[in-house]
């Protein structure tokens, strides 16, 4: 599956947030999205998902325009920055609703076996985030949008999730953004930077220096 978003124009309170955005993501590749705080990365993911309506946008799936909100296609899952699941929802129930495999989860994270009947609100920030990422990654969907998935995660969990992403990319189209830019650089097959409201295709770390996203000689 190939997902393209083009001609995005988003204004908020009379201020232009995004314009001249183009992004392409394909199955088999992880597409990374970088940018400074408040540059519009999360807004762009919400626009792709369909929960935020911009002034203009064109979404194409396999070269065909998709005019409805993408989430109505049931082909997409979006992990937002904030907690995804209602606090009073039990973990096991979330696995049933997202049609994800509980057995696979507890074989990867045996320490969660005791949490099956626990509600999301009772988990720590890291446990909650880990469960959310796993559910989003393993549910039925063809497109995955991950907004700062590594927030609250310990280095060990980040490593496991990184491996999971590398496996899942062969079946799914994945777009990822995170402030931990080194993880994004390591994972991404394609990379875009949002700078001054526009998207820029990044070919290597030197491009990030050129756009002043990272300091010179960071690599």
């Amino acid at each position, binding site marked *: 599956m190939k997902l393209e978003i083009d001609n995005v124009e988003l204004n*908020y309170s009379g201020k232009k947030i995004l314009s001249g955005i183009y992004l392409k993501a394909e199955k088999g590749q992880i597409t990374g999205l970088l940018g400074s705080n408040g540059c519009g990365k999360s807004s762009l993911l919400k626009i792709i*998902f*369909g*929960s*935020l309506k911009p002034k203009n946008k064109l979404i194409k799936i396999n070269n065909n325009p998709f005019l409805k*909100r993408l*989430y*109505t*296609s*049931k082909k997409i*899952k*979006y992990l*937002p920055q*904030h907690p*995804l*699941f*209602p606090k*009073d*929802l039990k973990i096991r129930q979330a696995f049933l*609703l*997202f049609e994800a495999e509980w057995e696979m989860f507890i074989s990867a994270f045996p320490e969660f076996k005791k949490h099956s009947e626990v509600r999301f609100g009772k988990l720590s920030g890291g446990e909650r985030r880990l469960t959310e990422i796993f559910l*989003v990654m393993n549910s039925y969907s063809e497109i995955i949008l991950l907004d700062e998935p590594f927030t609250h995660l310990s280095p060990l969990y980040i490593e496991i999730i990184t491996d999971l992403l590398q496996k899942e990319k062969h079946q799914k189209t994945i777009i990822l953004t995170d402030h931990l830019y080194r993880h994004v650089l390591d994972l991404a097959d394609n990379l875009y930077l949002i700078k001054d409201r526009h998207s820029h295709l990044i070919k290597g770390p030197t491009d990030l220096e050129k756009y002043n996203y990272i300091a010179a000689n960071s690599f």
Partner: protein
Amino acid sequence: MFRKFKVIFIFYKGYIIPSLLLNLIMIFLEIVPAVIIIYKIFLATLVIFWYLRPSKSDKLIFYYNLGLKNRSLFGIAFIYDLILTAACLYIISII
């Protein structure tokens, strides 16, 4: 289909107690059922507008992830509320 109703019930669950209390107050004040329904429609409209503000639409992302549209989510949640209201009216009438 059953899953869809279950998910919408998760959304509605948070409104059961306030709605129940409101029903009991209105029944206690001897407000006629048709007017109770009109109040409910008015309050449901306020709730929908609250959720659809750009700053609050993030609260619905869980439901969108399950493919639900606003129309189904709010429409079926309102039907749940009508069932609750009807049940309250019925129970009070037989007491």
